[in-house]
C-alpha cells in the first residue's frame, strides 16, 4: 500500500473555493448557446418570397440591319454625299457617316436640285422654292404667292408644278432659273420630271380628276394624261387619258412620272386607291415598252432612273397602302413595301429592298453613279449596292434622304 509523502497534519483539507464568477459566465454562455439553438430550431421562419425571375435588362433597341463595312466603303468610295434633312436642317454627309456638314439651317426640303457648278442648291421647302447659296443663305424663287407641290430640274434650270388651290389651275407649271430672272409658265401639272442628261421635261396633263383616298380628309387633283416636251417648247401627249385608263384601270390617274437620263424612256405610275397600281414604261414616241404591276395594295412612293455605264435602270419604291395606311404620311406609315429595279436593257427586274427597312420609309434616291439606292426611314438609312450581286448595308446616317448628288456642296 502506498504512502503519501509529507506530514498529514499540515495538509490543506479545506474545500477549494468555488469560482462563482467563472461558473456564472460559463453558465451564461451555455445558456445563450442552448437558447439560441433551441430558438433557431423552433422559431418559425417567414415564408419565402416568390421566385425571382431574372428579367434581362430592357434592350436599348431591337435588331437592326447590320453595317457591312466593306459594302459601305465601296458605296462611299464611288458615290457623293447624301443630302438629308435632320432636325430641321439640311445636311450633307458621306454614306459612311463622315464629313457631315450643315448646308442650310431651318430648311425642311422635300426635293432638291443641284448643287450646280457654283455650289447653289435649290430645294422645295413646304411649297416654297428656295435657293441655298454656298454660304447657307437662302433666297425664295418664283412668284410670292406660288406654292409648288413638285420640283424637278437640271443644272440651274427648274420646273415646278403648282399646288392647286383657289384660282390656280392644276396645270400651272413654272419654268424657273436658279439664278433668278423671269419665270415662264408651262402647262404641266404635278408630278413633273426633267431628264438628268437631256433637255426633256414631262408632267401630268388633263383632264383632271379629284381623287379621294390619297390624302386624309381631302381630295387631291390628279392628271389623267402625261405630256412631254422641251423646256420652253410645246408639250406633246405621251400618254393620253384613254390609253392610261386602258392600261391602268378605269379610274386611273397619274401618280408619278420619271424620265430616263437621256429622255428616251419615261415611266408613269398610275392607278387609283383600292385598285392595283402599275408602272408603264414608254418610249418618247408613246410606244409602251413594259408594264410593271405592283403588289396588291401597294402604291408607288418614288420612281427614279439611273444610268450606270450605259445600263439604264428604273427603280420603283412601292409601299403598302392597304387600310389605314392609305392616307398616312410616309414617315409615320407602319407598313412594309419594296423597291424594284427594272433593267431597261434586259427587261428584267430584281427586288433591291423589302420588308422591315421599308417600314416608314420616307426618302429614296439613286446615287449619281447609278450603282446604289438609298432609303431613309426612322430606323436609319439603308444602302443597296447593286452591281452583279445585291449588297445591303445600314449606313451610320440618320435623317430624311432628299437627294444623292455626285458632288458635295462646296
Amino acid at each position, binding site marked *: 500500500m502506498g504512502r503519501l509523502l509529507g506530514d498529514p497534519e499540515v495538509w490543506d483539507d479545506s474545500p477549494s473555493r468555488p469560482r*462563482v464568477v467563472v461558473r456564472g459566465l460559463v453558465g451564461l454562455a451555455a445558456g445563450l448557446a442552448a437558447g439560441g439553438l433551441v*430558438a433557431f430550431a423552433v422559431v418559425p421562419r417567414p415564408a419565402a418570397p416568390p421566385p425571382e425571375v431574372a428579367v434581362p435588362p430592357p434592350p436599348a433597341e431591337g435588331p437592326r440591319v447590320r453595317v457591312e463595312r466593306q459594302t459601305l466603303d465601296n458605296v462611299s468610295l464611288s458615290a457623293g454625299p447624301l443630302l438629308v434633312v435632320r432636325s430641321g436642317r439640311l445636311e450633307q454627309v458621306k454614306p459612311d457617316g463622315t464629313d457631315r456638314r450643315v448646308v442650310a439651317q431651318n430648311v425642311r426640303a422635300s426635293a432638291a436640285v443641284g448643287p450646280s457648278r457654283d455650289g447653289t442648291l435649290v430645294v422645295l421647302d413646304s411649297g416654297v422654292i428656295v435657293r441655298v447659296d454656298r454660304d447657307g443663305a437662302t433666297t425664295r424663287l418664283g412668284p410670292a404667292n406660288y406654292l409648288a407641290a413638285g420640283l424637278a430640274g437640271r443644272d440651274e434650270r427648274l420646273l415646278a408644278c403648282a399646288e392647286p388651290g383657289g384660282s390656280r389651275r392644276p396645270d400651272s407649271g413654272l419654268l424657273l432659273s436658279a439664278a433668278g430672272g423671269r419665270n415662264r409658265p408651262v402647262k404641266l401639272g404635278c408630278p413633273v420630271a426633267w431628264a438628268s442628261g437631256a433637255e426633256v421635261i414631262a408632267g401630268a396633263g388633263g383632264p383632271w380628276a379629284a381623287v379621294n383616298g390619297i390624302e386624309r380628309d381631302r381630295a387631291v387633283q390628279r392628271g389623267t394624261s402625261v405630256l412631254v416636251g422641251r423646256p420652253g417648247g410645246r408639250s406633246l401627249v405621251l400618254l393620253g387619258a384613254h390609253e392610261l385608263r386602258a392600261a391602268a384601270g378605269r379610274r386611273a390617274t397619274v401618280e408619278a412620272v420619271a424620265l430616263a437620263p437621256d429622255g428616251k424612256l419615261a415611266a408613269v405610275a398610275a392607278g387609283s386607291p383600292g385598285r392595283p397600281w402599275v408602272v408603264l414604261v414608254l418610249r418618247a414616241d408613246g410606244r409602251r415598252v413594259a408594264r410593271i404591276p405592283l403588289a396588291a395594295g401597294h402604291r408607288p412612293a418614288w420612281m427614279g432612273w439611273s444610268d450606270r455605264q450605259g445600263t439604264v435602270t428604273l427603280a420603283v419604291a412601292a409601299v403598302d397602302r392597304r387600310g389605314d395606311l392609305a392616307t398616312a404620311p410616309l414617315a409615320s406609315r407602319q407598313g412594309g413595301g419594296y423597291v424594284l429595279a427594272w433593267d431597261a436593257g434586259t427587261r428584267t427586274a430584281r427586288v433591291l429592298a423589302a420588308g422591315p427597312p421599308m417600314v416608314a420609309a420616307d426618302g429614296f434616291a439613286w446615287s449619281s453613279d447609278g450603282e446604289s439606292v438609298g432609303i431613309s426611314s426612322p430606323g436609319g438609312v439603308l444602302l443597296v449596292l447593286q452591281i452583279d450581286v445585291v449588297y445591303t448595308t445600314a449606313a451610320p446616317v440618320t435623317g430624311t434622304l432628299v437627294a444623292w448628288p455626285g458632288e458635295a456642296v462646296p
Partner: protein
Amino acid sequence: MKALRRSRPGPSAVDPLAERGRGRRKLALLVPVLTVTCGLVAGGVAVGRVVAGSRPAPARGPVVDGPLAGRASGPVEQLRDSGVLFFTDQQGRAFRQAADGRDRRPLGQLKELGGQSARPFLDQLDIAASLLAVPADRRRAELAPDGNLVYLVQPDGAAAVGRLQDGSVRRLVPAGWRSPTLPRHTSDGAVVGACGYRLAGRQGSAGVKVARSWILDHAGAGLATLPGCLYDLADDGSVALVTDPAQGRVAGPVPDAEYQGSPLVGGSDQLTRGLRLWRRAGGFRPVLSFAEVTRAFRAVQPEVDPRGLVVVTASLGPDRRRALVRIVDALAGDKPRTGREAEVLALVDLASGRAEPIPQHLPGLEAWLPTGGYVYTGGAGLATYVARERPPALLTATVAQEGTYVVAASPDGAWLLLGGSVWRFVRVDDPAVQVTYPAPGRFAGWAPALGPEGSGRGGPGDPKGVPRSVGSQGGAPVDRPEGASGP
C-alpha cells in the same frame, strides 16, 4: 486527488473555515443556474428574433450548367418552359434537350440519320426535281414529339419513317422512286404523306418523268395516291396541299431553259402549275390557279415567260385558310444571285384563290407560327416576321453569317428558332430579346415538354403508331430514352 480531512467535530463545534465557504458554495450553485436560465432566455429571444425576421433569398432561375455552361448569351432562363428540341449528330444519333439546354438525353440511333450529313442537300439526281418540290427549310430529318418517330429521306432518296426504339425504317415511296422533300405528317403521326418522282432518263439527262404522292394512315394503309407532288398536310390530316393536274394541262409542259447549267426539264408536264386541296373526307378543291401564279410572279418579274413558272413549295397555315407558296421561274437561268429575280414567295388565300406576292430578293426559308403569323428570310440576310395587321418586323440580320438553315416556331408560338452554326432564339413579341448558344447538332424538331416522368406521352398527340416497319435496316437503339414507351 482526494483531500484528507480532519475528523468532523461535534455539532456544537463549528468549524469557522467550513462555515465561511458554505455560502460561497451555495452561491456557486445558484449563480450558474441563474445565468444558464438567463442565457437560455436571452439567446432564445435574440436568435428567435433574428430567425423570425430573416428574409430568405428568393429562388433564382435555373442555373445553366452542363452543355451550355458559359456559352449561352441572353436570358436563357426564359426558355425554361419552351419545350423540347430534337437534333441529330453526324453519327446518326438523335438527342433531345430542353430549349434552355438542360436535360440532354440520347434517344437512339439510325444509320440513315448518319448518312444525312454526308449526303448533299441537292445531289445531281435532285437537281431535276428541284423544280418539282423544294423544302421550306433545310433540316435533314424531323422527329415526332414522342422522340421515337423520325421522318427522313434515305440515302437512296426515298422518303421514309423510322423508329429510334427498334431501329426500323419504312419506305413511303416504291422502290426506284425518289423524294424531293421530307415526308409530311400530322402532329400525332397518324397520317403521313410523301412525294415521289422518277426521272425520264439517267442522271442529268432528262426531267421528271412522273410524280406521284402517297398518303398513308398509321397502319401503313394507303389513303390516297395522287398525281403530282404533295406539299403539305394539315396537322389533323384532314386536308393536304397537292398538285392540281388541271392547271398543268392549262399551262402545258415546261420547256428547257436556254441557259447552260439550268435544270433540264425535258418538257415535263409533271411539274406543279397550280394547287388543290385534297380532302380526307373526299374530293378536291382548287386553291391556286396558274393564272394567279403568273399574276403574282409579275410583281417581281413583269415580263416573265409564264411557261417557266412552277410551284415548288407550299406550306399550310395553322388555320388552313392560307398558305405560303414559293413560285420559281424555271427559265431564269442558274445564277439567281446575279441575274434576274427568279423566285417569289406568295401568300395564298385558299378560299378566294388570290395570291399576294411577298416581294423579296432571293427568298430563303419560311415558316408559320401557331399564332397565324409567318416568318421568312431573304437575300439580305434578314429574317422578317409578319403578324396579322402588323408591319413586318425584323427578327435578325444574321441569317447569312450564321448559316441559318431552318426557322422553327416553339410549340406555343412565343419563340422562333433560327438554326445554323448557332441556335438563335428570338422572342416573337419582342425581337430585342434573343438567346443564342452554339448549335448542339442538326435541328430536327421542337415539341412541347414531355410529361413529368418524361413518358413521351405528354405532347400534343400521342403517336398512335407508324406505318409498320419492314424490318430493321441496321439501326439500333443507342440508349433507351428514359421513359420511352413501346417495345
